[in-house]
Protein backbone atom coordinates (compact mmCIF):
# COMPACT_ATOMS: atom_id res chain seq x y z
CA UNK A 1 0.00 0.00 0.00
CA UNK A 2 1.26 3.46 -0.83
CA UNK A 3 1.25 5.53 2.32
CA UNK A 4 1.20 9.30 2.12
CA UNK A 5 4.25 10.77 3.79
CA UNK A 6 4.30 12.76 7.03
CA UNK A 7 4.42 16.04 5.18
CA UNK A 8 1.20 15.30 3.36
CA UNK A 9 -0.49 14.20 6.55
CA UNK A 10 0.29 17.59 8.02
CA UNK A 11 -1.38 19.27 5.08
CA UNK A 12 -4.32 16.91 5.48
CA UNK A 13 -4.73 17.51 9.19
CA UNK A 14 -4.71 21.24 8.69
CA UNK A 15 -6.94 21.09 5.65
CA UNK A 16 -4.24 22.57 3.48
CA UNK A 17 -4.67 20.15 0.59
CA UNK A 18 -6.61 20.31 -2.63
CA UNK A 19 -10.09 18.91 -2.32
CA UNK A 20 -9.31 15.86 -4.42
CA UNK A 21 -6.18 14.91 -2.53
CA UNK A 22 -7.93 15.60 0.78
CA UNK A 23 -10.62 13.10 -0.16
CA UNK A 24 -8.03 10.55 -1.28
CA UNK A 25 -6.21 10.71 2.02
CA UNK A 26 -9.45 10.44 3.90
CA UNK A 27 -10.18 7.28 1.92
CA UNK A 28 -6.73 5.93 2.75
CA UNK A 29 -7.35 6.44 6.44
CA UNK A 30 -10.45 4.30 6.25
CA UNK A 31 -8.39 1.40 4.97
CA UNK A 32 -5.10 1.83 6.78
CA UNK A 33 -4.91 1.32 10.52
CA UNK A 34 -1.26 2.32 10.65
CA UNK A 35 -1.87 5.78 9.25
CA UNK A 36 -5.05 5.97 11.28
CA UNK A 37 -3.06 5.47 14.47
CA UNK A 38 -0.43 8.00 13.47
CA UNK A 39 -2.89 10.74 12.50
CA UNK A 40 -4.96 10.02 15.57
CA UNK A 41 -1.92 10.63 17.75
CA UNK A 42 -1.20 13.88 15.97
CA UNK A 43 -4.79 14.96 16.38
CA UNK A 44 -4.53 14.40 20.12
CA UNK A 45 -1.56 16.72 20.19
CA UNK A 46 -3.46 19.32 18.19
CA UNK A 47 -6.25 19.15 20.76
CA UNK A 48 -3.75 19.59 23.56
CA UNK A 49 -2.27 22.61 21.82
CA UNK A 50 -5.68 24.25 21.87
CA UNK A 51 -5.55 24.25 25.64
CA UNK A 52 -2.95 26.97 25.66
CA UNK A 53 -5.06 30.07 25.41
CA UNK A 54 -3.86 33.62 25.72
CA UNK A 55 -5.71 35.90 28.13
CA UNK A 56 -8.50 37.90 26.55
CA UNK A 57 -8.17 36.08 23.30
CA UNK A 58 -10.37 37.73 20.73
CA UNK A 59 -9.51 35.57 17.84
CA UNK A 60 -9.58 37.24 14.45
CA UNK A 61 -10.88 33.96 13.03
CA UNK A 62 -14.34 33.66 14.50
CA UNK A 63 -15.33 30.59 16.45
CA UNK A 64 -18.66 29.01 15.86
CA UNK A 65 -20.37 29.96 19.07
CA UNK A 66 -23.88 31.04 19.74
CA UNK A 67 -24.18 33.84 22.22
CA UNK A 68 -25.34 37.41 22.27
CA UNK A 69 -21.93 38.89 21.67
CA UNK A 70 -21.45 36.95 18.47
CA UNK A 71 -25.01 37.52 17.45
CA UNK A 72 -24.53 41.28 17.62
CA UNK A 73 -21.25 41.06 15.80
CA UNK A 74 -22.82 38.95 13.12
CA UNK A 75 -25.77 41.25 12.89
CA UNK A 76 -23.46 44.23 12.51
CA UNK A 77 -21.51 42.45 9.78
CA UNK A 78 -24.71 41.48 8.01
CA UNK A 79 -25.92 45.04 8.25
CA UNK A 80 -22.79 46.33 6.56
CA UNK A 81 -23.08 43.64 3.93
CA UNK A 82 -26.63 44.42 3.11
CA UNK A 83 -26.05 48.16 3.09
CA UNK A 84 -22.96 47.70 0.98
CA UNK A 85 -24.78 45.27 -1.25
CA UNK A 86 -27.43 47.81 -2.07
CA UNK A 87 -24.96 50.57 -2.60
CA UNK A 88 -23.13 48.68 -5.30
CA UNK A 89 -26.18 46.90 -6.59
CA UNK A 90 -24.81 43.46 -5.91
CA UNK A 91 -27.64 42.15 -3.79
CA UNK A 92 -30.21 41.56 -6.45
CA UNK A 93 -32.07 38.40 -7.35
CA UNK A 94 -29.90 37.85 -10.40
CA UNK A 95 -26.42 38.15 -8.97
CA UNK A 96 -25.17 36.24 -5.97
CA UNK A 97 -23.46 38.19 -3.20
CA UNK A 98 -19.76 38.03 -2.55
CA UNK A 99 -19.49 34.64 -0.99
CA UNK A 100 -16.25 35.17 0.90
CA UNK A 101 -17.75 38.10 2.76
CA UNK A 102 -20.94 36.23 3.42
CA UNK A 103 -19.04 33.26 4.68
CA UNK A 104 -17.16 35.44 7.09
CA UNK A 105 -20.39 36.95 8.39
CA UNK A 106 -22.12 33.60 8.54
CA UNK A 107 -19.33 31.82 10.30
CA UNK A 108 -19.54 34.07 13.30
CA UNK A 109 -22.86 32.73 14.44
CA UNK A 110 -25.66 30.72 12.98
CA UNK A 111 -27.62 27.91 14.43
CA UNK A 112 -25.54 24.77 13.89
CA UNK A 113 -28.05 23.09 11.64
CA UNK A 114 -28.48 26.05 9.35
CA UNK A 115 -24.81 26.87 9.51
CA UNK A 116 -23.82 23.41 8.47
CA UNK A 117 -26.16 23.47 5.53
CA UNK A 118 -25.05 26.94 4.53
CA UNK A 119 -21.36 26.18 4.80
CA UNK A 120 -21.84 23.02 2.79
CA UNK A 121 -23.49 25.14 0.16
CA UNK A 122 -20.65 27.61 0.21
CA UNK A 123 -18.00 24.98 -0.09
CA UNK A 124 -19.49 23.36 -3.14
CA UNK A 125 -18.71 24.43 -6.64
CA UNK A 126 -19.96 27.97 -6.42
CA UNK A 127 -20.73 28.51 -10.08
CA UNK A 128 -23.83 26.55 -10.89
CA UNK A 129 -24.78 25.38 -7.43
CA UNK A 130 -24.87 28.94 -6.25
CA UNK A 131 -27.39 30.04 -8.83
CA UNK A 132 -29.80 27.46 -7.48
CA UNK A 133 -29.08 27.71 -3.82
CA UNK A 134 -28.76 31.46 -3.72
CA UNK A 135 -32.41 32.13 -3.14
CA UNK A 136 -32.62 29.49 -0.45
CA UNK A 137 -29.49 30.87 1.12
CA UNK A 138 -30.79 34.41 1.01
CA UNK A 139 -34.02 33.34 2.64
CA UNK A 140 -32.24 31.59 5.44
CA UNK A 141 -29.87 34.48 5.88
CA UNK A 142 -32.70 37.00 5.90
CA UNK A 143 -34.73 35.04 8.39
CA UNK A 144 -31.83 34.55 10.70
CA UNK A 145 -30.79 38.12 10.27
CA UNK A 146 -34.19 39.45 11.19
CA UNK A 147 -34.33 37.48 14.40
CA UNK A 148 -30.89 38.55 15.42
CA UNK A 149 -31.27 42.14 14.34
CA UNK A 150 -34.22 42.45 16.69
CA UNK A 151 -31.99 41.45 19.54
CA UNK A 152 -29.31 43.76 18.22
CA UNK A 153 -31.53 46.81 17.89
CA UNK A 154 -32.93 46.23 21.34
CA UNK A 155 -29.42 46.33 22.59
CA UNK A 156 -28.33 49.36 20.67
CA UNK A 157 -31.44 51.44 21.16
CA UNK A 158 -31.05 51.08 24.87
CA UNK A 159 -27.36 51.81 24.84
CA UNK A 160 -25.34 54.93 24.26
CA UNK A 161 -23.63 55.95 21.06
CA UNK A 162 -20.32 54.97 22.52
CA UNK A 163 -21.49 51.39 22.62
CA UNK A 164 -22.49 51.51 18.98
CA UNK A 165 -19.05 52.76 18.16
CA UNK A 166 -17.62 49.91 20.17
CA UNK A 167 -19.67 47.40 18.24
CA UNK A 168 -18.53 48.95 15.01
CA UNK A 169 -14.96 48.76 16.19
CA UNK A 170 -15.46 45.08 16.88
CA UNK A 171 -16.82 44.78 13.40
CA UNK A 172 -13.66 46.35 12.08
CA UNK A 173 -11.68 43.64 13.81
CA UNK A 174 -13.80 40.97 12.23
CA UNK A 175 -13.66 42.43 8.77
CA UNK A 176 -9.93 43.05 8.96
CA UNK A 177 -9.42 39.43 8.18
CA UNK A 178 -11.21 39.71 4.85
CA UNK A 179 -9.16 39.41 1.72
CA UNK A 180 -7.68 42.50 0.17
CA UNK A 181 -9.82 42.33 -2.94
CA UNK A 182 -12.96 42.07 -0.86
CA UNK A 183 -11.87 45.09 1.10
CA UNK A 184 -11.81 47.19 -2.02
CA UNK A 185 -15.42 46.72 -2.98
CA UNK A 186 -16.55 47.20 0.58
CA UNK A 187 -14.57 50.43 0.59
CA UNK A 188 -16.35 51.58 -2.53
CA UNK A 189 -19.64 50.57 -0.98
CA UNK A 190 -18.90 52.35 2.25
CA UNK A 191 -18.14 55.53 0.40
CA UNK A 192 -21.60 55.39 -0.96
CA UNK A 193 -23.34 54.64 2.24
CA UNK A 194 -21.33 56.98 4.38
CA UNK A 195 -24.02 58.43 6.51
CA UNK A 196 -23.29 62.08 6.20
CA UNK A 197 -23.39 61.79 2.42
CA UNK A 198 -26.50 59.71 2.22
CA UNK A 199 -28.84 62.46 1.12
CA UNK A 200 -31.67 60.29 -0.04
CA UNK A 201 -32.70 57.84 2.63
CA UNK A 202 -35.69 56.60 0.70
CA UNK A 203 -33.49 55.42 -2.16
CA UNK A 204 -31.98 52.99 0.25
CA UNK A 205 -35.36 52.03 1.62
CA UNK A 206 -36.56 51.44 -1.93
CA UNK A 207 -33.92 48.82 -2.30
CA UNK A 208 -35.09 47.20 0.87
CA UNK A 209 -38.59 47.07 -0.48
CA UNK A 210 -37.40 45.26 -3.57
CA UNK A 211 -35.85 42.64 -1.35
CA UNK A 212 -38.93 42.53 0.82
CA UNK A 213 -41.11 41.91 -2.19
CA UNK A 214 -38.87 39.11 -3.31
CA UNK A 215 -38.71 37.32 -0.04
CA UNK A 216 -42.04 38.05 1.40
CA UNK A 217 -43.40 39.51 4.55
CA UNK A 218 -40.54 38.31 6.65
CA UNK A 219 -38.47 41.23 5.57
CA UNK A 220 -41.01 43.91 6.30
CA UNK A 221 -39.91 43.70 9.87
CA UNK A 222 -36.27 43.71 8.81
CA UNK A 223 -36.84 46.91 6.90
CA UNK A 224 -38.20 48.60 9.98
CA UNK A 225 -35.45 47.25 12.13
CA UNK A 226 -32.82 48.49 9.70
CA UNK A 227 -34.43 51.89 9.58
CA UNK A 228 -34.26 52.00 13.36
CA UNK A 229 -30.59 51.31 13.08
CA UNK A 230 -30.15 53.85 10.33
CA UNK A 231 -31.76 56.56 12.35
CA UNK A 232 -29.97 55.59 15.48
CA UNK A 233 -26.53 55.78 14.00
CA UNK A 234 -26.94 59.08 12.16
CA UNK A 235 -23.93 61.24 12.96
CA UNK A 236 -24.28 64.73 14.34
CA UNK A 237 -27.79 66.00 13.72
CA UNK A 238 -30.26 63.27 14.45
CA UNK A 239 -33.10 62.99 11.97
CA UNK A 240 -36.35 62.37 13.81
CA UNK A 241 -37.72 58.99 13.04
CA UNK A 242 -40.90 59.14 11.01
CA UNK A 243 -42.55 55.79 10.57
CA UNK A 244 -44.80 57.07 7.78
CA UNK A 245 -41.88 57.65 5.43
CA UNK A 246 -41.01 54.00 5.48
CA UNK A 247 -44.14 53.02 3.67
CA UNK A 248 -44.25 55.98 1.38
CA UNK A 249 -41.41 55.32 -1.00
CA UNK A 250 -42.32 58.12 -3.34
CA UNK A 251 -41.63 60.77 -0.83
CA UNK A 252 -38.13 62.11 -1.32
CA UNK A 253 -36.89 64.30 1.43
CA UNK A 254 -34.54 67.16 0.74
CA UNK A 255 -31.44 67.39 2.94
Amino acid at each position, binding site marked *: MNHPNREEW*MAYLYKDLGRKRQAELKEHLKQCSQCQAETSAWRSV*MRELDRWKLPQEHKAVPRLRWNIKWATRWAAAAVVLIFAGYAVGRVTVASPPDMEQLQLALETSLEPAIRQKVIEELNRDWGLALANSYLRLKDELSGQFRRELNAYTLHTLAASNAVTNELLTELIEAINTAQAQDRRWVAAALEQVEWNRLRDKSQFINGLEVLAAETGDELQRTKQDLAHLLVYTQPGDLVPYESENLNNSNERSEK
Partner: protein
Amino acid sequence: MRASVFSYLSDLFSLSDEQAMLRVQKENDSHAFALLVRRWQGRIQRLCARLTGDVHRAEDIAQEVFMRVYAHRNDYRGEASFATYLRRIALNACYDEQRRLKRRNEGSLKHNNSENTFNAALEASTLSPEMVAAKQERAELVRKALFRLADQYRQVVILRHYEGLRFREIAQVLDVPQGTVQSRMAEALTQLGRFLKPIMKEETH
Protein backbone atom coordinates in the same frame (compact mmCIF):
# COMPACT_ATOMS: atom_id res chain seq x y z
CA MET B 1 -16.73 61.15 16.51
CA ARG B 2 -19.48 59.19 14.78
CA ALA B 3 -18.72 60.63 11.38
CA SER B 4 -15.11 59.65 11.86
CA VAL B 5 -16.04 56.08 12.70
CA PHE B 6 -17.08 55.68 9.11
CA SER B 7 -14.16 57.46 7.61
CA TYR B 8 -12.09 55.28 9.92
CA LEU B 9 -13.85 52.25 8.51
CA SER B 10 -13.37 53.59 4.99
CA ASP B 11 -9.68 54.03 5.54
CA LEU B 12 -9.30 50.55 6.87
CA PHE B 13 -10.86 49.15 3.77
CA SER B 14 -9.50 51.40 1.10
CA LEU B 15 -5.77 51.18 1.66
CA SER B 16 -4.04 47.86 1.32
CA ASP B 17 -1.10 47.17 3.61
CA GLU B 18 1.25 47.50 0.68
CA GLN B 19 -0.27 50.79 -0.42
CA ALA B 20 -0.07 52.15 3.10
CA MET B 21 3.54 51.09 3.37
CA LEU B 22 4.30 52.82 0.10
CA ARG B 23 2.87 56.03 1.50
CA VAL B 24 5.00 55.68 4.59
CA GLN B 25 8.07 55.23 2.43
CA LYS B 26 7.42 57.91 -0.16
CA GLU B 27 5.56 60.59 1.77
CA ASN B 28 6.46 59.78 5.37
CA ASP B 29 2.73 59.51 5.90
CA SER B 30 2.19 59.01 9.62
CA HIS B 31 -1.53 58.49 9.10
CA ALA B 32 -0.81 55.52 6.86
CA PHE B 33 1.65 54.14 9.38
CA ALA B 34 -0.86 54.51 12.19
CA LEU B 35 -3.31 52.60 10.04
CA LEU B 36 -0.88 49.70 9.72
CA VAL B 37 -0.26 49.70 13.44
CA ARG B 38 -3.99 49.74 14.15
CA ARG B 39 -4.55 46.83 11.82
CA TRP B 40 -1.73 44.66 12.99
CA GLN B 41 -0.91 45.49 16.57
CA GLY B 42 -3.23 42.94 18.13
CA ARG B 43 -2.13 40.11 15.92
CA ILE B 44 1.57 40.84 16.29
CA GLN B 45 1.23 41.07 20.03
CA ARG B 46 -0.44 37.67 20.13
CA LEU B 47 2.20 36.21 17.86
CA CYS B 48 4.97 37.50 20.10
CA ALA B 49 3.15 36.22 23.17
CA ARG B 50 3.18 32.77 21.66
CA LEU B 51 6.74 32.94 20.43
CA THR B 52 8.12 34.07 23.78
CA GLY B 53 5.55 32.41 26.01
CA ASP B 54 5.31 35.69 27.88
CA VAL B 55 2.24 37.85 27.42
CA HIS B 56 3.61 40.92 29.16
CA ARG B 57 6.95 41.00 27.47
CA ALA B 58 5.10 40.55 24.19
CA GLU B 59 3.63 44.03 24.49
CA ASP B 60 7.08 45.60 24.60
CA ILE B 61 8.34 43.43 21.79
CA ALA B 62 5.36 44.36 19.63
CA GLN B 63 6.21 48.03 20.10
CA GLU B 64 9.77 47.22 19.11
CA VAL B 65 8.50 45.47 16.00
CA PHE B 66 6.63 48.51 14.76
CA MET B 67 9.52 50.76 15.61
CA ARG B 68 11.72 48.55 13.47
CA VAL B 69 9.20 48.62 10.66
CA TYR B 70 9.28 52.38 10.68
CA ALA B 71 13.01 52.71 11.17
CA HIS B 72 13.74 50.33 8.30
CA ARG B 73 10.76 51.30 6.18
CA ASN B 74 12.86 51.61 3.07
CA ASP B 75 13.92 48.01 3.35
CA TYR B 76 10.48 46.81 2.36
CA ARG B 77 10.61 46.24 -1.36
CA GLY B 78 7.21 44.72 -1.89
CA GLU B 79 8.55 41.35 -3.04
CA ALA B 80 6.80 39.63 -0.19
CA SER B 81 3.45 40.74 1.16
CA PHE B 82 3.53 43.18 4.03
CA ALA B 83 2.00 40.52 6.24
CA THR B 84 4.89 38.18 5.54
CA TYR B 85 7.43 40.96 6.00
CA LEU B 86 5.92 42.06 9.28
CA ARG B 87 5.84 38.54 10.69
CA ARG B 88 9.47 38.05 9.79
CA ILE B 89 10.37 41.15 11.75
CA ALA B 90 8.30 39.89 14.67
CA LEU B 91 10.05 36.52 14.61
CA ASN B 92 13.44 38.20 14.56
CA ALA B 93 12.53 40.59 17.35
CA CYS B 94 11.36 37.71 19.54
CA TYR B 95 14.44 35.71 18.73
CA ASP B 96 16.66 38.68 19.62
CA GLU B 97 14.82 39.06 22.89
CA GLN B 98 15.23 35.39 23.77
CA ARG B 99 18.95 35.61 23.04
CA ARG B 100 19.28 38.71 25.15
CA LEU B 101 17.62 36.98 28.08
CA LYS B 102 19.72 33.89 27.63
CA ARG B 103 22.92 35.91 27.77
CA ARG B 104 21.71 37.61 30.89
CA ASN B 105 20.88 34.34 32.63
CA GLU B 106 24.00 32.52 31.59
CA GLY B 107 25.98 31.29 34.56
CA SER B 108 23.09 31.40 36.95
CA LEU B 109 20.76 28.44 37.38
CA LYS B 110 22.63 26.18 34.98
CA HIS B 111 20.10 23.38 35.30
CA ASN B 112 17.13 25.55 34.53
CA ASN B 113 16.82 24.31 30.97
CA SER B 114 13.50 23.70 29.28
CA GLU B 115 13.51 19.94 29.73
CA ASN B 116 14.07 20.16 33.46
CA THR B 117 11.43 22.84 33.76
CA PHE B 118 8.95 20.67 31.91
CA ASN B 119 9.74 17.56 33.92
CA ALA B 120 9.40 19.48 37.16
CA ALA B 121 6.02 20.80 36.08
CA LEU B 122 4.92 17.34 34.99
CA GLU B 123 5.96 15.81 38.28
CA ALA B 124 4.19 18.51 40.23
CA SER B 125 1.02 17.89 38.31
CA THR B 126 1.09 14.14 38.71
CA LEU B 127 1.47 14.49 42.43
CA SER B 128 -2.02 15.89 42.47
CA PRO B 129 -4.33 14.26 39.91
CA GLU B 130 -6.86 17.01 40.20
CA MET B 131 -4.25 19.51 39.11
CA VAL B 132 -3.69 17.72 35.83
CA ALA B 133 -7.32 18.19 35.01
CA ALA B 134 -7.21 21.81 36.02
CA LYS B 135 -7.24 23.92 32.91
CA GLN B 136 -4.49 26.26 33.90
CA GLU B 137 -2.07 23.56 34.88
CA ARG B 138 -2.65 21.74 31.67
CA ALA B 139 -2.24 24.88 29.60
CA GLU B 140 1.00 25.55 31.39
CA LEU B 141 2.24 22.05 30.62
CA VAL B 142 1.45 22.54 26.97
CA ARG B 143 3.32 25.81 26.96
CA LYS B 144 6.33 24.21 28.62
CA ALA B 145 6.23 21.31 26.21
CA LEU B 146 6.29 23.75 23.31
CA PHE B 147 9.36 25.38 24.77
CA ARG B 148 11.13 22.06 24.92
CA LEU B 149 11.04 22.05 21.15
CA ALA B 150 13.90 23.50 19.18
CA ASP B 151 13.22 27.01 17.85
CA GLN B 152 12.67 25.91 14.28
CA TYR B 153 9.95 23.43 15.28
CA ARG B 154 8.23 25.70 17.74
CA GLN B 155 8.06 28.53 15.20
CA VAL B 156 6.28 26.34 12.69
CA VAL B 157 3.77 25.08 15.24
CA ILE B 158 2.98 28.59 16.37
CA LEU B 159 2.57 29.93 12.86
CA ARG B 160 0.47 27.00 11.67
CA HIS B 161 -1.57 26.04 14.70
CA TYR B 162 -2.05 29.35 16.48
CA GLU B 163 -1.66 31.93 13.76
CA GLY B 164 -3.47 29.79 11.23
CA LEU B 165 -1.07 30.51 8.40
CA ARG B 166 -1.03 28.09 5.50
CA PHE B 167 2.11 26.10 4.94
CA ARG B 168 2.91 28.08 1.83
CA GLU B 169 2.70 31.33 3.79
CA ILE B 170 4.89 29.98 6.57
CA ALA B 171 7.45 29.00 3.94
CA GLN B 172 7.54 32.62 2.80
CA VAL B 173 7.91 34.00 6.30
CA LEU B 174 10.72 31.60 7.20
CA ASP B 175 12.22 31.66 3.72
CA VAL B 176 12.45 27.87 3.51
CA PRO B 177 10.80 25.41 1.12
CA GLN B 178 7.22 24.44 1.86
CA GLY B 179 8.14 20.78 2.21
CA THR B 180 10.60 21.71 4.92
CA VAL B 181 7.88 23.53 6.82
CA GLN B 182 5.60 20.53 6.68
CA SER B 183 8.40 18.21 7.65
CA ARG B 184 9.24 20.33 10.68
CA MET B 185 5.58 20.40 11.63
CA ALA B 186 5.38 16.62 11.58
CA GLU B 187 8.51 16.33 13.67
CA ALA B 188 7.20 18.94 16.10
CA LEU B 189 3.86 17.21 16.59
CA THR B 190 5.61 13.89 17.03
CA GLN B 191 7.95 15.25 19.69
CA LEU B 192 5.11 17.03 21.45
CA GLY B 193 3.24 13.75 21.44
CA ARG B 194 6.09 12.14 23.31
CA PHE B 195 6.36 14.98 25.83
CA LEU B 196 2.66 15.12 26.50
CA LYS B 197 1.97 11.39 26.51
CA PRO B 198 1.74 11.14 30.34
CA ILE B 199 -1.09 13.66 30.52
CA MET B 200 -2.82 12.68 27.30
CA LYS B 201 -3.24 9.17 28.60
CA GLU B 202 -5.86 10.46 30.98
CA GLU B 203 -8.13 11.21 28.07
CA THR B 204 -10.81 8.66 27.40
CA HIS B 205 -12.00 8.94 23.83
